[in-house]
């Protein structure tokens, strides 16, 4: 027992020395509210997941009731905390939506939020689940999508969300589904995250794999087997992929239809069941739960094979909560003209103010 304690002491001592060195270079990690996961320009969903994991810890410093927005990229862009607060100064708005989330991941982010926020504050706070049909894509489709998930993960066949994958950096204390995380008191989770957050500036500057920069050096490509003239012709201009090229609104809808998978128009019960469980958990924590059906261009709602089934299943899922008054449902589906969308789902930057106004007005009601 004494030996274990001594090893633990030296572990903390050695890592503290290293972390102290990093603090000397990069400074102490700042603590700020409100929390906003989205950064411009957008980089990867992986970065957003990492930010959601670490920045959720700032919620523990909240001294007043919060408004917390969860969802995917549309919720991220449409409801920035500053715009929400500009419309209503009484709100301390936070947006922890992560791009390309599904309900499974949204539930994991909720767990991060619930663990970080002090229970008395949680009981007076409001959580907004800003949803649309792509959020209900099955885990099987979403977490094996080759455009959105690293090839090695797709190949492994393991269905793992961005949040869970980033949490693998320190799985027991960062993964909201791990038993250690669930059992740990919130103050200990905060301390663990605060300690690991010191490493974040370094992690952002380092490659994903330690040897990547070395292996990228062109000198290694010299191969004595390759005779002059047998070398493959130079590659032409970089081809655009579905994930990088600018898509037209209809292409976005087609991409989403393909993203949702087959059979066309059939949404998995699994995600609706999980959404129902999520609402129950939020209710149990004392949160005021608001479900927002996000605006959708009329042509998209009319032409998408998934939109009508989504509305039908959503109605079935939330009707028990509406009956007992535990959910406040806001339907913004047809509340905006089509010219307020920059593509098939996302808001135009100049229309964000209008989107947030719609939400704030409805929340006020």
């Amino acid at each position, binding site marked *: 027992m004494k030996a274990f304690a001594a090893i633990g002491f030296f572990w903390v001592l050695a890592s503290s020395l290293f972390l102290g060195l990093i603090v000397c270079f990069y400074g102490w990690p700042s603590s700020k509210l409100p929390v906003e996961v989205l950064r411009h320009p957008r980089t990867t969903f992986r970065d957003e997941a990492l930010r959601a994991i670490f920045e959720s810890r700032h919620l523990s410093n909240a001294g007043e009731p919060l408004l917390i927005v969860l969802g995917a990229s549309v919720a991220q862009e449409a409801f920035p905390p500053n715009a929400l607060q500009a419309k209503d100064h009484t709100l301390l708005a936070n947006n922890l939506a992560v791009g390309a989330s599904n309900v499974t991941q949204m539930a994991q982010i909720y767990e991060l939020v619930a663990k970080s926020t002090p229970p008395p504050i949680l009981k007076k706070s409001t959580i907004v689940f800003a949803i649309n049909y792509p959020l209900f894509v099955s885990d099987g489709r979403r977490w094996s999508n080759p455009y959105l998930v690293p090839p090695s993960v797709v190949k*492994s066949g393991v269905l793992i969300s961005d949040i869970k994958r980033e949490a693998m950096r320190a799985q027991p204390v960062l993964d909201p589904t791990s038993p250690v995380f669930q059992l740990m008191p919130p103050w200990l989770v905060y301390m663990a995250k605060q300690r690991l957050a010191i490493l974040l500036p*370094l992690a952002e500057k380092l490659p994903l794999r330690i040897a990547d920069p070395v292996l990228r050096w062109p000198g290694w*490509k010299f191969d004595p087997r390759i005779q002059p003239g047998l070398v493959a012709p130079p590659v032409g201009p970089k081809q655009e992929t579905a994930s990088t090229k600018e898509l037209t609104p209809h292409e976005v809808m087609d991409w989403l239809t393909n993203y949702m998978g087959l059979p066309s128009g059939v949404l998995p019960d699994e995600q609706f069941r999980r959404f129902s469980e999520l609402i129950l958990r939020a209710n149990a924590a004392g949160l005021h739960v608001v479900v927002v059906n996000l605006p959708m261009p009329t042509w998209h709602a009319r032409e998408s094979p998934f939109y009508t089934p989504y509305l039908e299943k959503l109605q079935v899922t939330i009707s028990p909560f509406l009956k007992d008054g535990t959910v406040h449902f806001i339907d913004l589906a047809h509340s905006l003209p089509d010219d307020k969308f920059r593509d098939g789902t996302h808001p135009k930057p100049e229309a964000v103010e209008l989107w947030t106004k719609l939400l704030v007005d409805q929340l006020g009601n």
Partner: protein
Amino acid sequence: MTMSNWFKVYVFNPVLMAFTKHWPAKNAALFLGIAAFFITFFLVGLWHGTTWAFVTCGLLLGFGAGTNHLYRTWLRSYLGRTRFDALCAATPYLAMAAAFTFTYICLSVTPLWMTIEELQKTLALYGLSGLAVAELVLFLMMFAFIPWWRAPGKSTPPAGWKLNLLLGSQLAAIEIYLFLFPSFGSVFFYEQF
């Protein structure tokens, strides 16, 4: 009994004895030794699994062990027994031999975590020079670190607070390394069973 001892007692020795009994000629001893080493190490590879990855691994291990036996026999006859024994006792030579063995084992187990397609892609991307340099870097790292725990007179492992300090520092290093370079979605090679 360790696995290596088991293979020595129940595979290598009986196979070599059977070969020697069947081909008693003195000049065949070298080749019989190579064959016995090859069979033993090939079976060591197969013991881990029966897919092509393990067969390839076994073949590489068998080839390495057989070649090593050939090299040692040749070196002994070239240098003479006294000089050969002196060379084998020299720390730099021991460190180099150990580093080379580790490097070769790393190469041999490559099929366990890389498919043929991945290997082809890696070779196409980095070329033979990339592969050779990777092996060389591994060899140099091993060569640099092995003398630390193989140095004569320092074979006693640390104890007391020094051991606790070492273990604590190792845990801190592992924790920080895993945070900075997490292993995302890698496939554990025993899934190939």
